[in-house]
């Protein structure tokens, strides 16, 4: 995996992020719902227990299938040996409700004339309504219902019962809350008051919900990651392949179609496209070769025929015209071929290359000088680079009467510079000069020749080398043309 950024940019990263976020939200909602459900269940249990107590007949409660004896014995025992057994039982049962059941009867259901509401206590209307509903479902219409929550220690029943308080504090925790539910029931006088200890929230349950959520999240996330990688890996390979193809136009060894169906189809389509482009390029090469052959043969014939022209001057002009056509033809064919597959750059020493091009011009007695150069070895397409340099120098000689050539290194660029003392190019025409078939003003008199492809070809060659052609007017006059080749 590439290094993690705060915001993923890859398809895999973004899809994973989107899925993970969605999953997390969904799971959070489900966790909250789970929690709420468990809360409402707890509430329901509490209220049911209270209703059960309220409705419980003290007589019936006192005799539930022989449990009375146990209770009686328990009561006796508590009195005799400090309630150790009850304590034990409470701890063993662990449930607050059962402990409450183990309390003296008057704690479970108390009949009183006074409202159990203590000063400063707030009634719980929600619970009161729910309790009333439960009672009504049992066919009992309570005249009034009060539900409050108070701490065990604050409840009047614990007054003067230090040991009870301690016991509850030990088993249920020091701040056990007691729900006190009171109702004025028909056929009973005053308030029936039931007490139910609110079971402490199971601390584990929240943790369990969070844990479960995380576990499921991790599992699903891993699954998604594996699945998405299976989808995106062929895509990555395809991207690499496309980049390579853009560079080399080499359709050989097509990609194997793999991954999900859509991607397979994409790869198959890409392979077909590569093959088509390759075929088109091959066709183009064959066609250009044929054009070259078909035009050069009659040119050659013409060149032979003009030898019979008696007038030397006339023959010379004819030969020059033929040479002109040949050069244009070569330029056009070259421009179409530059950068095609098959040629690998070779390490060449550039100062000797530059010198040898300059010497060609010296041999033709042209005012071309090499001002500065030092030994530099760089992988280049020798024939092409010579050609680009030759084009720049002949332009300089043609329009600027002389050329100064230098080979230098500046930063990470190798710079092949050709400068002349001519009129330069108007700034707004510089871009246009690089377009095919554009010529400078001075060539109106037609003695210069060429198809106007010199600079276009030089630029194409510079780009073939990963570099660029830069044209600029020199402040002291004349044009400066630079081929900049990156060293890297």
């Amino acid at each position, binding site marked *: 995996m590439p290094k993690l950024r705060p915001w993923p940019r890859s398809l895999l990263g973004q899809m994973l992020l989107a899925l993970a976020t969605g999953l997390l939200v969904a799971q959070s909602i489900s966790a909250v719902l789970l929690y709420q459900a468990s809360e409402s269940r707890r509430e329901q249990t509490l209220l049911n227990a209270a209703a059960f107590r309220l409705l419980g007949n003290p007589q019936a409660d006192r005799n539930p299938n022989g449990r009375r004896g146990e209770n009686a014995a328990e009561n006796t025992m508590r009195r005799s040996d400090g309630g150790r057994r009850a304590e034990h039982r409470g701890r063993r049962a662990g449930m607050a409700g059962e402990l409450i059941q183990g309390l003296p009867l008057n704690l479970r259901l108390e009949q009183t004339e006074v409202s159990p509401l203590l000063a400063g206590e707030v009634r719980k209307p929600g619970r009161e309504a729910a309790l009333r509903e439960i009672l009504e479902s049992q066919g009992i219409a309570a005249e009034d219902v009060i539900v409050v929550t108070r701490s065990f220690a604050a409840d009047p029943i614990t007054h003067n019962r230090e040991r009870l308080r301690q016991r509850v504090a030990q088993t249920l925790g020091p701040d056990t809350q007691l729900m006190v539910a009171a109702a004025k029931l028909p056929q009973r006088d005053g308030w029936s008051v039931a007490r139910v200890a609110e079971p402490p929230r199971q601390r584990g349950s929240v943790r369990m919900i969070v844990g479960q959520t995380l576990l499921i999240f991790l599992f699903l996330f891993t699954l998604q990651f594996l699945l998405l990688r299976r989808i995106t890996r062929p895509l990555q390979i395809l991207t690499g392949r496309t980049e390579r193809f853009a560079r080399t136009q080499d359709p050989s060894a097509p990609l194997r179609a793999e991954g999900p169906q859509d991607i397979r189809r994409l790869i198959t389509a890409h392979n077909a496209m590569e093959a088509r482009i390759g075929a088109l390029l091959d066709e183009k090469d064959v066609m250009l*070769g044929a054009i*070259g*052959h078909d035009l*050069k*043969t*009659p*040119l*050659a*014939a*013409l*060149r*032979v*025929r003009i*030898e*019979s022209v008696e007038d030397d001057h006339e023959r010379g002009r004819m*030969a020059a015209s*033929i040479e002109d056509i*040949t050069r244009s033809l*070569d330029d056009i064919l070259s421009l179409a071929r530059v950068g095609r597959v098959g040629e690998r750059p*070779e*390490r*060449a*020493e550039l100062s*000797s*290359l530059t*010198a*040898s*091009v300059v*010497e*060609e011009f010296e*041999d*033709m007695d042209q005012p071309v000088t090499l001002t500065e150069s030092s030994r530099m*070895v760089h992988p280049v397409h*020798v*024939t092409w680079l*010579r050609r680009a340099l030759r084009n720049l120098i002949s332009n300089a000689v043609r329009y600027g009467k002389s050329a100064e050539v230098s080979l230098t290194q500046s930063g990470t660029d190798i710079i092949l510079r050709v400068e002349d003392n001519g009129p330069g190019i108007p700034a707004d025409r510089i871009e246009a000069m690089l377009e095919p078939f554009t010529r400078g003003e001075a060539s109106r008199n037609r003695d210069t020749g060429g198809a106007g492809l010199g600079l276009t070809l030089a630029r194409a060659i510079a780009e073939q080398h990963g570099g660029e052609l830069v044209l600029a007017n020199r402040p002291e006059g004349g044009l400066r043309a630079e081929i900049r080749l990156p060293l890297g």
Partner: protein
Amino acid sequence: MIEDTPTRLLLVDDETILREPLAEYLTRQGFAVQEAESAAAARAVLIEFTPDLVLLDIMMPGEDGLSLCRHLIETRDLPVILLTAKSEPTDRIIGLEIGADDYVIKPFEPRELVARIRSVLRRAQRAPVPTEETALYRFDGWTLDPLKRKLIDSDGAMIAISTAEFRLLRAFLDHPRQVLDRDRLLDMVQGREAHMFDRAVDNQVSRLRRKIEEDSRNPEIIQTVRGGGYRLAADVRRSAAETR
């Protein structure tokens, strides 16, 4: 060359528009020219006619020029000059590899073609073609590939040299440690392109020195010999060309 028996040429080219005027021109130049419009026709002509040199177009329908060229060199040992419309260096190398003596690119200057014909015939008469025509020259850390005309330095980088410099260097390498005077060098270097005929040898030597000498003002490889000449002061080894 004996004047009264004209040099016999076989011109093989499928393009009538070129073949006919070229044959006429060469005839006017004093050659006896036989024409053939295809490789098959050429094979037929060769049964009764033995030319001194064959001018051969590469791109022809049917059997192409390279194939015929191979046949001519293997079975008849005839000098061959290839005529080609392509200027790709690979074509030139393939042509020279299978043993053609020279090549010209269409459209060519007819006078240049004549000069090359004479030059090839001169070489053919003077000495048998060296068997090691394609073997690499190695000297003082340098490598010269005579086929690809490439000069490689000790780092493996290519050094650009002109045709004239290549010929000059090769002349030195073929005669290591011998003193070669200017006339001899000029004779050996005299090339096929007209404008090089009068090139001053000294000028070429100094250009060559700039490329291969550590310090071209104190040359160590190509030394000046008092009394007018130069000498290659290095040992030369030949080894088979790497296949690339």
